[in-house]
């Protein structure tokens, strides 16, 4: 049994188990925001079912004074509100931890554990007594457990009350109900338990320059800032909230004040094939256009993606990855579309892909994606995932440079076309593999036929081998040349490294960083490189050269990142080792440590001593 001394202030994994559709999301959000406003590094991860009402759902809160906000490796406190999932929820508490539950109904003995403390509160009973109507009772039950947590964890009550006041400023009756519920839980806990628990919290000053946001909201804002005017989509979890965000920000920033008309056009397509077609059509006209989707959508878009690649139409796609294959587990996360996006479509194709690790990069990479797409006249993917896209992340405040000018790439204007002797769409004039393009409606000399069928460098239909190969070779060189323009990998080197390096990607980053620090504390120093863009640049190649063993950590079954590295670098297969977690949850440091340890040789073990 764990002793009190095992717990520190501001170091806590908290899991709240509820039933979806009962309004627990807003209670949990309130809790998370309160901790954030107390200045404590925090993250929230929503584990929800693909269902609208009635199934188990969990919310995991990680508080960590050192700023580690990857998924909590363990849970000291579980709020068990769903009898259906009692068994597994109670089992998840660490030995010596606490379970807060609703004791309006007696807890079955089978769920009892000797090594954890049960904190029973008659939540339903109190709510029935104090509120009228079943809906409000259900909602307030959630707020009541927040009230209890305020006492148990020593959360700043003023912060919580302040937030309720902000939120319900216009709805007095709701504010009153929330205040009552908070007080009910708080008073009950104060009276019956030894508050605060040893896992208590304390105000810090670590979140002052930070914001709390989801990756999809940040990416949506990035699209607005990039100047995207056309968005096309078909609803799919976990990408929907990206278009919801874009819609919201457009209505806020893009409505012409004089006419009330929109400086944007959002088309809800009949499917992802159509969404891709719309994006390509708009981009062909010279607009910045994009579509957010998930793996199933990319599968459907593939034929069109090949057209855009071959006909060199810039366009931007967001793949907010979820657990595949097929429909898979739509509300769980994974990194299993890496290969799909890198080579989407039949025939020889290769695409520019950006891999954000948090909402800050979602914002920045969306802006960059449009620049890259237009510079290289090719489909560009921002590959995020459900964890980054839909969960709340604490990130440094976003910044914007007002002198930013978008890179629209090589586009010939009317004057240039007028002066030009002739215009050939696919003729590389200066050896950078990127022929200038013309836009419809600008000048008769700019006219050409955009086609996915065989064409020569003059833009003419062809079935001639040499003419075909010439264009295909240039396309390969063109996309390869983007390697130095995609976000560079982030490299962490150590003095006295062991010749072992880690390579990882996207949202794995935070668990890898944390595990790496844990290893370092034991004297095992590991170099680390985080891939942020594809095609890979020279830094990636060099990192692989510099290490005898490279452990690739990723969230899919088939070692997709590892295989991409083998395909696209000169690295020897024997060098690369693989650590994979693909169960659908965000990665936590435990998996990394467990996965990496077997690859550390006796030498490394000795280094520890």
């Amino acid at each position, binding site marked *: 049994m764990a002793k009190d001394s095992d717990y520190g202030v501001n170091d806590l994994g908290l899991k709240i188990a509820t039933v979806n559709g009962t309004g627990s999301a807003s209670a949990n959000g309130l809790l998370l925001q309160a901790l954030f406003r107390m200045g404590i590094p925090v993250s929230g991860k929503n584990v929800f079912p693909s269902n609208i009402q009635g199934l188990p759902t969990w919310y995991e809160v990680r508080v960590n004074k050192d700023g580690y906000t990857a998924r909590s490796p363990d849970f000291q406190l579980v709020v068990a509100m769903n009898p259906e999932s009692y068994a597994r929820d109670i089992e998840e508490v660490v030995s010596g931890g606490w379970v807060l539950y609703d004791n309006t109904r007696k807890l079955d003995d089978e769920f009892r554990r000797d090594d954890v403390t049960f904190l029973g509160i008659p939540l339903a009973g109190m709510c029935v007594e104090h509120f009228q109507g079943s809906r409000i009772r259900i909602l307030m039950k959630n707020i009541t457990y927040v009230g209890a947590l305020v006492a148990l964890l020593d959360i700043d009550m003023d912060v919580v009350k302040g937030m309720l006041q902000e939120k319900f400023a216009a709805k007095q009756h709701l504010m009153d109900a929330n205040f009552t519920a908070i007080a009910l839980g708080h008073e009950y806990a104060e009276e019956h338990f030894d508050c605060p628990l040893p896992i208590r919290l304390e105000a810090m000053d670590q979140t002052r320059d930070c914001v709390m946001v989801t990756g999809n909201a940040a990416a949506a804002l990035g699209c607005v800032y990039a100047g995207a*005017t056309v968005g096309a989509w078909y609803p799919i979890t976990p990408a929907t909230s990206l278009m919801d965000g874009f819609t919201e920000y457009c209505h806020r920033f893009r409505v012409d004040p004089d006419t009330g008309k929109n400086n944007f056009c959002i088309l809800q397509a*009949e499917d992802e094939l159509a969404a891709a077609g719309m994006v390509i059509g708009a981009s062909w006209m010279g607009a910045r256009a994009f579509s957010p989707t998930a793996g199933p959508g990319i599968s459907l878009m593939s*034929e069109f993606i090949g057209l855009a690649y071959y006909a060199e139409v810039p366009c931007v796609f967001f793949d907010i990855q979820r657990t595949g294959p097929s429909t898979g587990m739509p509300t769980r996360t994974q990194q299993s579309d890496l290969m799909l996006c890198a080579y989407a479509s039949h025939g020889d194709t290769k695409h520019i892909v950006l891999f954000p690790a948090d909402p800050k990069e979602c914002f920045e990479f969306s802006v960059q994606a449009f620049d890259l797409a237009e510079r290289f006249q090719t489909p560009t993917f921002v590959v995020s995932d459900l964890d980054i896209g839909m969960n709340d992340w604490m990130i440094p405040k976003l910044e914007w440079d*007002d002198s930013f000018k978008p890179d629209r790439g090589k586009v010939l204007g009317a004057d240039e076309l007028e002066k030009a002797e002739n215009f050939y769409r696919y003729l590389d004039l200066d050896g950078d593999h990127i022929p200038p393009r013309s836009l419809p409606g600008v000048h008769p000399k700019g006219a050409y036929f955009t086609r996915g069928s065989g064409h020569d460098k003059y833009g003419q239909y062809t079935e001639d081998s040499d003419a075909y190969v010439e264009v295909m070779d240039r396309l390969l060189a063109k996309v390869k040349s983007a390697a130095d323009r995609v976000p560079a990998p982030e490299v962490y080197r150590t003095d006295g490294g062991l010749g072992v390096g880690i390579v990882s990607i996207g949202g794995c980053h935070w668990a890898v960083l944390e595990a790496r620090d844990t290893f370092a504390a034991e004297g095992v120093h590991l170099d680390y490189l985080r891939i942020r863009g594809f095609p890979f640049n020279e830094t990636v190649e060099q990192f692989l050269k510099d290490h005898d063993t490279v452990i690739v950590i990723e969230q899919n079954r088939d070692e997709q990142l590892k295989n991409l590295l083998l395909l696209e670098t000169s690295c020897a297969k024997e060098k690369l080792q693989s650590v994979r977690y693909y169960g659908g949850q965000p990665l936590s440091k435990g998996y990394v440590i467990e996965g990496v340890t077997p690859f550390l040789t006796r030498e490394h073990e000795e280094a520890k001593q």
Partner: protein
Amino acid sequence: MSYIKKPVARHPKLKVNSLGLTVRDYEGSMSTLCAGCGHDGVTAALIQAFFELEVEPHRLAKLSGIGCSSKTPSYFVSEAHGFNAVHGRMPSVAAGANAAHRDLLYVGISGDGDSLSIGLGQFCHAIRRNVNMLYILENNGVYGLTKGQFSASADIGSTSKGGVVNRQGPIDPVNTALSLGATFVARSFSGDKDQLVPIMKSGLRHNGFAFVDVISPCVTFNDHQGSTKSYAHTRSHMHEVIETDFVPLRSEITTEYSEGSMQSVTMHDGSVVKLHKVAGEYDPTDRRAVLDYLVDVGSRGEIATGLLYLEEAGDDMHGFENTVDEPLVEIPFADLCPGSKALEEVQKEWW
């Protein structure tokens, strides 16, 4: 911006339009379709329509899917931008293009395979969206390019070249368009240029999705006896219901029709479409009545042609989406990017 084409050597007697262009300036590259293919008749009519409408070539965007029919855009207006999409998916490209640049004139060419099989969904949704474009379906009852398989427009009982009888019922694109709420619906025949040209001109001036189903025989795979999409069958079974006269803005009305047999519709740009009723009682603005009539005529194996239905008042896609009048592609970046102060403001809500 307007560009007057430099005079090229041309027949001195060729008529010149107000842009200084002759009908030949609206041609494209040489057709590579089979000699006698109906699709070439559609091309010829389109060229005439663009010339007469005095369309600026570079302000035209021509799109298509995949098929023999979808090759057509190469054969007209070489100074217009073209887009050969993937099979059956041209409508979405057109919708996206139009969303970005509403000031261009859009013409989409498709086939019966392209629009009624693989692309039926996109065809239907372009109608619902009322994308402002002229949409021509070159209908031959077969997949020409893949060598003559039955398409979804093949009639029950129609036979293939090899003698196979089609048993599945057809998807009638005109009835489909009407039932989905299309605002401009016509049917014509590639061999009837006189009927086609005014319909195409009217369609190009229509504010919304202008659909023209053109029976366009495939001489190689579906022009034999027993086919209901052959030249001979079409000629002997078609009858014109409405004769269309397109009167551009500011021109005199020359054709005279007797009172009561004519309805005129003023188009978005002020031009007028005169609909002369050939077949007695027929109201081309009454959707229900038109559908009933067509089902009736169709059940007798007859092919009713003409501009069958027209409704000009509604909103197109941009009306539904409330987009600004100016093309989105022309809005300067400064008006699109909210800037650093706004970013500060947004982030206050993320705290």
